[in-house]
């Protein structure tokens, strides 16, 4: 088992290692390098990389098997990755997977005998407004129906497949977007475009004229709250960094957007990366960090490309590097690609992953602000949060506070998906009623359908029923309604949606994404998935509903991170709010919706059976 690495490979690997405080942090990108060089990650490749980086091969193997996005030697030339998570499933994603499976004569996870195709069902690709979506290798294909799927297969077979960047779109509303204002403009991702609209002025002003403490104070005053899910005040988080600590400080931009129903950071990354970089400059200055990392999810191959180019452009202009804007301040930005693990969106899981490990969350305290990346003070901020900073600095606190509510100021990019007429990104002031978003802005539900349920903040949020949609969409109002704003992923479900199947889909996601560290989450998510599978497929028992609720209670608050809670919250709320539907599944020993031929959330296996 020995593989000769080329000098070019070694040089690239060494350059990667040099970008991190410790060599092993280069492990994830090193596996990507193997992918590029050898087409997949092989055992020989892992052993060679382990030796070169200076870690045990077992460590590399543990890391490799944790992440789902690396290419395996058994994968075909074209990986057809169908999103199977709820927002896509609501719009036919599972049917699409079934169709492709039938077309290719293989089941998900299998490769065609000619080695051309591997079909995979994958979890949320953060492209929910373009559902159902498909990723062919690294390239997204939007709104794929059986006909377009067939066409893709044929074009690949005939060698005429050329991936195209899907067109971007944002629904227009009476609310003028601020963060998303320029994303549809031609060349919006270039540094020249950004400079032409006044870009990098704020970062320059901050670095040249403001003290870090002043920046922190200003952001505190602005009331900006984290846009990644938890809604923690950004300035306060920065304030926890011990300024006097002799250790290096790190800023990490969380671009691991994976919460089902959320697809905003993808847009900001791909279409306005310089705004994000300017945000990084401001935040890094505030905490006096000289190394920033953008942890971008593995599926965003194009986004990573755009960001890297943007970083290079900014560096070439002298905005990044040894003397940012000519000032005596150094900042290096490294774009670090993940590899397919939802848990790496959790800030401590992200940090562990960035250190070159399986993405295991860490117990808090110590909080990352005090002890994070390689035990140094670290701030992890979401893409959208960072993108707000140039605007707050440029327009002032009063301007920012004009939008939204007292406790949730500013705009928020909501991601409307599922059964709405106009799915897409809606940048809105915080505090608008959910009803207005669904009916007035997103055009309501498809004709002839009625609203049944809404998940207001990504699939980890508790579900709201049709009677609860007058709630205001801000952090505190949603908390009062026993759910959460989360990442702003609004998943709308109509009256034909089987809630049992919807929950099964959600729980399958958490089962798939549980890191497996803590017992209650590792075992509980799998258990719930299996119970829901039985309920939906006609093998439910009356006592199962009670067991689901009990198991949820036994998971909540008992684990290192909140993934267990994130699985339990939707589960409990859906069972409690739609109990009769569950009881009907038990009583009828099957799915009433399927019997009526109404469901679109059909899992592949069943779809195959039905045909």
């Amino acid at each position, binding site marked *: 088992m020995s593989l000769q690495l080329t000098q070019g490979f070694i040089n690239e690997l060494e350059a990667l290692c040099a970008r991190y405080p410790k060599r092993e942090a280069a492990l994830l990108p090193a596996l990507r390098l193997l992918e590029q060089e050898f087409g997949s990650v092989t055992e020989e490749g892992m052993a060679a990389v382990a030796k070169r980086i200076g870690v045990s091969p077992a460590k590399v193997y543990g890391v490799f098997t944790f992440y789902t996005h690396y290419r395996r030697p058994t994968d075909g030339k074209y990986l057809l990755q169908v999103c199977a998570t709820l927002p896509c499933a609501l719009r036919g994603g599972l049917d699409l997977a079934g169709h492709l499976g039938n077309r290719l004569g293989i089941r998900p996870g299998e490769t065609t005998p000619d080695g051309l195709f591997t079909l995979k069902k994958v979890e949320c690709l953060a492209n929910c407004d373009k559902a159902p979506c498909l990723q062919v290798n690294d390239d997204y294909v939007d709104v794929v129906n059986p006909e377009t799927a067939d066409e893709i297969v044929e074009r690949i077979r005939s060698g005429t497949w050329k991936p195209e960047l899907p067109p971007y779109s944002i629904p227009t509303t009476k609310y003028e977007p601020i963060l998303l204002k320029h994303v549809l403009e031609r060349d919006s991702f270039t540094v020249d475009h950004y400079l032409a609209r006044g870009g990098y002025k704020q970062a320059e002003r901050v670095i040249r004229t403001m003290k870090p403490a002043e920046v922190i104070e200003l952001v505190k005053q602005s009331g900006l709250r984290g846009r990644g899910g938890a809604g923690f005040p950004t300035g306060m988080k920065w304030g926890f960094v011990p300024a006097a600590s002799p250790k290096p400080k790190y800023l990490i931009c969380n671009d691991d957007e994976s919460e089902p129903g959320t697809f905003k950071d993808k847009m900001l990354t791909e279409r306005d990366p310089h705004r994000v970089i300017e945000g990084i400059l401001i935040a890094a200055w505030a905490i006096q960090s000289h190394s920033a990392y953008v942890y971008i999810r593995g599926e965003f191959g194009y986004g990573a490309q755009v960001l890297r180019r943007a970083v290079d452009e900014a560096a070439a202009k002298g905005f990044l590097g040894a003397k940012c804007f000519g000032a005596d301040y150094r900042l290096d930005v490294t774009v670090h690609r993940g590899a397919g693990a939802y848990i790496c969106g959790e800030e401590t899981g992200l940090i562990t992953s960035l250190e070159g490990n399986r993405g295991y969350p860490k117990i808090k305290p110590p909080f990352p602000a005090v002890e994070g990346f390689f035990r140094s003070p670290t701030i992890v901020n979401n893409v959208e949060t960072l993108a707000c900073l140039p605007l707050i600095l440029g327009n002032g606190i009063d301007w920012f506070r004009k939008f939204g509510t007292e406790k949730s100021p500013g705009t928020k990019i909501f991601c409307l998906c599922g059964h709405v007429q106009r799915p897409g990104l809606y940048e809105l002031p915080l505090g608008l009623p959910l009803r207005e978003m669904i009916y007035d802005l997103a055009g309501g539900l498809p004709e002839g359908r009625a609203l049944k349920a809404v998940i207001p903040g990504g699939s980890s949020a508790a579900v709201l029923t049709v009677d609860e949609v007058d709630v205001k969409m801000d952090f505190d109002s949603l908390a009062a309604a026993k759910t959460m704003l989360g990442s702003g992923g609004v998943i709308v479900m109509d009256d034909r949606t089987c809630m049992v199947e919807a929950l099964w889909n959600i729980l399958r996601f958490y089962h798939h994404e549980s890191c497996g560290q803590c017992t209650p989450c590792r075992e509980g998510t799998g258990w719930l998935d299996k119970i829901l599978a039985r309920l939906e497929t006609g093998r439910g028992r009356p006592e199962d509903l009670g067991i689901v609720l009990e198991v949820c209670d036994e998971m909540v608050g008992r684990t*290192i991170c909140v993934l267990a809670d994130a699985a339990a919250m939707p589960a409990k709320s859906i069972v409690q709010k739609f109990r009769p539907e569950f009881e009907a599944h038990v009583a009828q020993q099957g799915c009433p919706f399927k019997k009526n031929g109404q469901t679109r959330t059909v899992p592949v296996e069943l779809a195959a059976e039905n045909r």
Partner: protein
Amino acid sequence: MPKVKINGKEVEVAPGTLALKACLEAGVFVPHYCYHPGLTPAGNCRMCLVKVSNSRKLEASCMYPCTDHLEITTEGPDIDKARRDVLEFLLINHPLDCPICDKSGECALQDYTYTYRRGVSRFVEPKNIRPTKDLGPNIKIWGNRCIVCTRCVRFCEEISGTGELCVVNRGDHAVVDVFPGVPIDNPLSLNVVDICPVGALIDKNFLYSARVWFAQETKTVCATCSRGCNALVTSLDGRIKRIVARPNAAVNQYWMCDEGRRNFEYVASKRRLDSRRGTFEEMTSAARAIVKRYGSGSVGGVVSTYQTVEEMHLFAKLMKALEAPAPGILTAERGARQVFPGGFVIEADKTPNRAFAVRLWGEASVQDGLARVVTDIDGGRIKGLIVLNGIPHPPWPQAFLAAMEKLEFLAVIDILQSPVSDRASVVLPGTAWAEKDGVFVNVDRRAQRIHCVVPPPAGARLEVDTLQMALVALGARQAVVSAETVFGECAREYSEFAGLDYAKLGEHGVGLPEATESVSAAP
């Protein structure tokens, strides 16, 4: 020093002490799987949840640092429920194959399930399957039993520093594994079997060889090197089945090397000496006759550093009674001293009691080994020789074997048949280290008790008995007493043992002060 209250009782702890450690040290048991005192905590099994005054949630006590005035509650209906819940979770994908599991009877899953009366599961789904496979020459994993506590992975990273183990896959498919083609194969590998809290990692050598509840467990000390790791020997029907580590912070922390664990096969070897050739009377009368004929110094001795303090003490007396010069010292060194990243040490000296030989005969004498004896035999000064050896496979020097031929008389007290015993006119089978009581002094001058674990072969006799009978026959001793009483003599004779007896040595031994009187050289 922060003061914390554990179940209402105030105790003082070192700053930064983790709550679980504080509880265990205060004698309050908190169940746990992933926590191990010799490894960095992981906080993943969630079994050690307790209530702390600073938090509304239950907290994993293994990761919760004690701060001043912290109140820790380790029991209560909600805590017990949380632990029962964790146990149910742990067992849903577990095969419950206790009847054929090697760990049965010493399994923390069984024990806590019993404690918390978690007898019924609500789980009716199909269980996940994870493979049963070899992980290395000594170790096999039953994947289905693994609870992914990562103790073994942390051991290989932190203690052995070899890093062969990892967790592969994610969620409830996660399991411990090795990199394909790179087995776990290091000098400390079997420690991972010791610390596996369930029946996942199994020592292939012990597999299906004993139900532990029928077996005996004896606390003793390993004789494989001069480190003297504290050990626990499992035996059944008079046969040793396995040796595992017994914690002793001053010697071996929680660990033991694989060689030490395997160093018992010779005890039941077919090559064991089990019938006497000649008697102790023949030995003493022949020796006395040689001294009478050739004078002082014509009878010599060889003693190995595998012998106990008591045996060496009596052997020194025998040498004195026979007017012999200082004996040759048989030692066994192999390789270099190995220090592992976790601080564990394997000594190059492969015998357990060199320190006491140095105490009796001096470092120079021990260094000299058998050289002077060989010279004396070759020079015709030594005509008769008494050899006392306990080293299983001693490195007899060729020159010594050649010198044997020149002796008029050779008596051997040994455990295994050897070229030396083949040449002897008197052969008195001795006992292996696991067949006797006694004391070893380790490389750090710590006196530790060894215990009789299994009976010696039929024809063998305790060395302390043989030596005392010889001394009685020579008129140099009144009576034959137990090894414990002989140690009492040692305590009176050697200042560093002053005041010590078997009871005081306890389970973990006693660090010895420097000897105050000068080393007693040869008479």
